[in-house]
């Protein structure tokens, strides 16, 4: 039992880190495809060795800490995002029985870890001691704090339907019907909040390279920048796998493929949606983002919660 457990942890870490690295190549190729270009196609078959080249480049770059920065916090900040996202993966059920920590508070743990991820942006921006970084950090903090609220509220719909916080039990509860059908509104809100939470385009307002240089990581170079980079791709994978777990039946699927394969396929679809969004959407203004969140998504998520609870009560009677 113990050995089996360590295999799960090792396997999950191995697959996740490789996925995050592979996404660099996949994203550039897919963006190129959707924009009628070739993208990186020189190194290796289909240009996949660009990942290796990129990583080597990051390792050999000068690892510069600005003299005006707060050194300890500056070094510490990039680690926070990777650590918190990897911790959140501990509660995701990848297949029947394949989960690192089968906790009764799974969803809450995911929310807690995603809210701790804010610190990497805030601290990175503050420690850089740079105007653009500070602006990016402030935008990041307010964006992620606001969108966390609707994210949590949207999730509560599935919690009401399944009656548990345990992610494995939520997947089991979707045997009859995936929650995407009764919880369509909740899914849409969770998806939008998820994009904002991973600060991906169109909501990459904390970095906004056309306004703020590179936002909160303007001063970062080398492997410290690489950590933010990997953290972002891990975040995409995390949100995609949470969407699959909560709304698309997790590992459930026709029996000719094992559950893990179904989970990977479904997650992959959502990762592609994330990349397609980057290729197709313009970035909103900062105040538009906040207004949209608080004036549209917040009331909608409350309504969704209220409606779900009422319908559940009526059906149970």
């Amino acid at each position, binding site marked *: 039992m113990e050995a089996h457990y360590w295999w799960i942890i090792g396997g999950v870490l191995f697959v996740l880190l490789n996925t995050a690295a592979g996404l660099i190549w996949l994203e550039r190729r897919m963006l190129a495809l959707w924009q009628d270009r070739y993208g990186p196609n020189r190194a290796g078959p289909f240009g996949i060795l660009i990942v290796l080249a990129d990583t080597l480049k990051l390792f050999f770059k000068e690892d510069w800490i600005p003299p005006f920065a707060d050194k300890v*916090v500056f070094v510490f900040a990039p680690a926070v995002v990777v650590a918190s996202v990897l911790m959140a993966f501990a509660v995701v059920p990848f297949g029947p029985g394949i989960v690192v920590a089968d906790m009764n508070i799974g969803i809450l743990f995911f929310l807690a870890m995603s809210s701790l991820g804010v610190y990497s942006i805030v601290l990175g921006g503050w420690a850089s001691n740079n105007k653009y970084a500070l602006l990016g950090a402030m935008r990041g903090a307010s964006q992620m704090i606001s969108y966390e609220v609707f994210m949590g509220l949207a999730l509560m719909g599935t919690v009401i339907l399944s009656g548990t916080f345990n992610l494995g039990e939520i997947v089991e509860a979707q045997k009859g019907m995936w929650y995407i059908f009764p919880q369509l509104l909740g899914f849409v809100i969770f998806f939008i909040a998820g994009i904002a939470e991973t600060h991906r385009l169109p909501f990459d307002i904390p970095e906004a390279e056309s306004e703020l240089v590179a936002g909160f990581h303007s001063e970062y170079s080398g492997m410290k920048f690489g950590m933010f980079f990997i953290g972002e791709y891990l975040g995409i994978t995390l949100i995609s796998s949470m969407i699959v777990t909560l709304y698309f039946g997790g590992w459930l699927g026709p029996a000719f493929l094992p559950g893990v394969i179904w989970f990977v396929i479904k997650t992959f679809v959502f990762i592609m949606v994330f990349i397609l969004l980057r290729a197709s959407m313009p970035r909103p203004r900062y105040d538009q983002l906040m207004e949209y969140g608080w004036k549209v998504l917040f009331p909608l998520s409350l309504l969704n919660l209220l409606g779900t609870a009422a319908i559940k009560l009526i059906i149970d009677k």
Partner: protein
Amino acid sequence: MGIAFYIAAAVAVLSTIMVITRFNIMHALLYFIVSLLSVAVVFYLYGAPFMAALELIIYAGAIMVLIIFFVMMLNLGSQTAGEERSWMTPGVWIGPSVLCLVLLGELVYLMLQPGDLSGDVRVVDPKEVGKSLFGPYILAVELAGMLLMAGIVGAYHLGRQKKKIVHRFLQNAES
């Protein structure tokens, strides 16, 4: 579980001491976050996973981020660290420390009493918390709701702005 508890508790105490003794406010806040995290671990160990998660989501994930947000806006530099240093005289910290020592002594005395205080740990799941919150403690929940409502109304009042019309003809008509 004993060792895990003692480690978490030691981290909590140490980081809290560091919160008080740091002169740079951002470092103090970071230690405060560590202290909150370790308290969450203690909650988890003593059978309150729901409380532990809430501690992480609300205190470490939301309130502390807001405080850090404001500290960032205030742009407190090295001169405030110097100010803090000059305020930290023995006269300031001796009084509270003595009072805390009295409390500590009392706690140790109580712990040395016969009878198992730590007792058996019973895991309280979220459902149970919800049932007791909306059962016997419904009045407290409603009072907290009223307090929050007052806070929201106050924040709305403070943040309200009179609508400004920037059109040159309409502006004259307004004033």
